[in-house]
Each structure stands twice: as C-alpha cells, then as structure tokens.
C-alpha cells in the first residue's frame, strides 16, 4: 500500500510541478483572499490580529477545495481514472498518495499564508511549536477528508459545485479546532491551545481510516 501511495503522490506532485497551478494560481488566489479580508476589516490592526487565525484557516479551506478539485480533475481527463483502476493499484494506496500530494501543496500554501498573516495583519507567533503541530494535524485532516469527498463527487457532472457543498460543512471541526489552537498560539486565547489538537487528531484519524478502507470502492463507483 505504501509503495502505491508514494507512486501516486509522486505522480500528482510531478503534475503540479510541471503545471505550476499551485504556485502560479492557487497561492496568488490565497494571498488575494487574505488581502481582501484585510480591506473588509478596514485595516484595523486590533480586529485583524484577533480574527487573523480564522481568516487564515478559511483561506486554507478555500485553497484545499481547489487542490482537491484539481487532484480529481486530473483523473477525469482522457480516461485517466480507468487507467488508474486498470493498474491494479491498491485503493488505500491511491487514497494515501492523493492525500499526501494534496497535503504537500497545502503545506506550501500555509507557509505562504502564514507569512501573509504576519506581514498584513501584524500577527506575532508566540508558540511556534503549537502552530506547526496544529498545521500538521489540520492539514492531514483537510487532505484526508478532501480526498474522500473528492472521489465521491468525481463521477458526477455537477462535481465542481457539489464538492464545496459537501466538503465545507464537514471541515467545520478543522476550522474550529485549528483557529482556537492558533489563537492560543499567538497568545489571544485563555487556556491551552493543545487541547484543541485532540479534535484535529481525531478528525484526521477518522478520515484517514475511512479513506484507506473505502477509497477503492468509492473509486469503482465514481
């Protein structure tokens, strides 16, 4: 399964490296979203600092949607999905590979967005370790859930519009947990931010397990 996962992840990342959709389109889009949030809050530093973590994770969620849609649109072109099925790759391996590739893209975007939050909103990173662990767990959850719902929507004609409708409500726990953990990490929340990591870890574990077990069947039905 892990061999298959690395093979699929390598293929998806090579496609991204060659097409540069993430760096040339999604990353600028994410920064524009942050900038617009800044305008919307009238450049009020106090407000921006306090809502910055939420805005950051909303921007990450929107980028995750694009990354998931892109990941599955690759497979819908020119019978590529049939090629993937015919290869006999393990369903769990394909799931992990696609989730790993999406997670890698999100990690890059999160670094860019974090720099944007620091520069545009004046946020100070008080607990970098908590921030990094939060990003790791939230990214794993986003990528896993996104991959599960991505394949569910892949075979539908209305997948572009249906995927956000299905996925965004499901990702609410990630938005909540990651935002609260970040608020604690930048010193704006009372209580420990680490307890929110339990929610993020549970979310990621549930969707990783679900994906490994069900992805093969979902791919067949897509």
């Amino acid at each position: 399964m892990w061999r298959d996962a690395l093979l699929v992840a390598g293929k998806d990342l090579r496609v991204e490296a060659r097409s540069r959709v993430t760096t040339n389109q999604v990353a600028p889009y994410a920064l524009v979203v942050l900038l617009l949030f800044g305008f919307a809050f009238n450049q009020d530093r106090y407000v921006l600092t306090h809502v910055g973590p939420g805005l950051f994770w909303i921007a990450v969620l929107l980028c995750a949607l694009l990354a998931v849609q892109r990941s599955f649109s690759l497979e819908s072109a020119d019978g590529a999905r049939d090629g993937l099925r015919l290869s006999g790759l393990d369903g769990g391996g394909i799931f992990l590979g696609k989730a790993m590739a999406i997670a890698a893209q999100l990690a890059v975007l999160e670094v860019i967005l974090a720099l944007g939050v620091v520069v545009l909103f004046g946020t100070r990173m008080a607990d970098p370790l908590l921030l990094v662990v939060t990003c790791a767990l939230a990214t794993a959850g986003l990528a896993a859930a996104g991959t599960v719902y991505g394949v569910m929507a892949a075979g539908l004609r209305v997948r572009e519009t249906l995927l956000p409708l299905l996925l965004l409500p499901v990702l609410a726990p990630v938005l909540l947990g990651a935002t609260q953990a970040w608020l604690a990490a930048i010193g704006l929340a009372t209580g420990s931010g680490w307890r929110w990591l339990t929610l993020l870890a549970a979310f990621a574990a549930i969707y990783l397990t679900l994906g490994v077990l069900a992805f093969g069947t979902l791919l067949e039905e897509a």
Partner: protein
Amino acid sequence: MDPVIRLRSAVALVGRFPVLAGVDLDVSPAEIVLLQGANGAGKTSILRACAGLLRVVAGEAYVLGVDLTIDARAVRRRVGLLGHATALYDDLTVVDNVTFAVRASGADRAGVAPALAHLGLTGRLPQTRVAALSAGQRRRVALATLVARDPELWLLDEPHAGLDAEHRDLLDELILAAVGRGRTVVLASHERHRAHALAGRIVTVAGGATAPAVPATPGDTASAGSPVVADPEATSVA
C-alpha cells in the same frame, strides 16, 4: 488448455441499461479474436468487462482464470486495455506517463525505453509533455505503455484509429509478436481489411450479445500467422 476468456450468458449494466445482454465468448491462449459489429453493438463493453472495468452482474465470466463476478479487480494487472481514451496525463512527459503506468501495474520499468524506441518515440519526444503531442502521437504513447507492460491479455478497441499507415503496420507487427510470445489479443475494429488479416476468428456482436463465430479466411489468417479455427463449434459463441 484453459481458455483465457470464458463468458457465458454474461450480463453487464450501465445504470439500469444492459450494455451486455447475454454474451457467450471463448478465447484460447495466443489467439487473436476480432469483435465486429455496428456502433453501440457492445464491442467496447465486452472489452471493458474482460478488463474488469465493467461489472458482470449475471452469467459466468472468467478471464485468465479469475471469476469476474466475484473480484473483477484481481485480473486488471494481467490485462492491458487500449481504449478510445489514452489514459495519459497531459502535464506529464511521455516517459513519465509510460513509467508511471508500468510501475503502477507492477511491471518492470526496464521495458519502458525499448517500448518507446519501438514506437518511434525517440529524440525529444520522451521528454515532451503529452499535451503538446498530436492525436496519433498520443496513441503511440498509449501503445508504448501496453508494449512496456506486455500483459497476458491485450484488449484493443479500435487500435488503428489515429495512426498513420506506417504505424498501423507497426501495430499489426506488435500484435503478431505479442501472440508469438503467447499473449492473447481481442480487438474491436472497423478497419475490416487490417483486422480480418490479423484475426484468427471473428465474433459478431449485436445488441449487447454475440452471434455465432466466423472463422477467418485461410488466406487472411495465414498471412497473419494465426491459427485457422477449423471447427467453429469448438470456439464458437452461441
């Protein structure tokens, strides 16, 4: 010798529509069988069912000894399907595409370079993105993937489409060479002249079902190097 393909009253659905409505087909090892019929007759569906991509919901369906009604996925790594779509990734290069398909199917990647060379994909072409290729070149890349994988059963859906005369000849040579190595080939083609010359046996498909088999003419078969089916009943479809 066990048949490579054995279908009996095989039924397959797409949605609620029966794309296969009682197919009977036997294909022996190292045989070339041509499926012929009008558009929409069910030729592609038979090929997809044999590849394990279309679920057989009723009847018997064995390919390479695997019961497709139980686990269609089990046969996939042992068959190669060249369909209307090429299953290539536009943003990957030719060599990346073929290497990925070969590695994914568990075949030896050492076969990639010879396959590309055999299909004339040399010079700059291996490092060219597939999106920049012509339709015929894309078809040759898909063929190179099949050649590099060299599966036990070749399922070819309109394999000559999009190829120029030189590469149509090359394809015919590849098919005959594969059969010479003990591979089995089932093809669907509207290229009557070429396909009849290749095939050892012709199966007519209509309305999602098969009609009785027709042995290829001795002259055609001899030219293709394939065995003549002396007794249609022995390998016929009913």
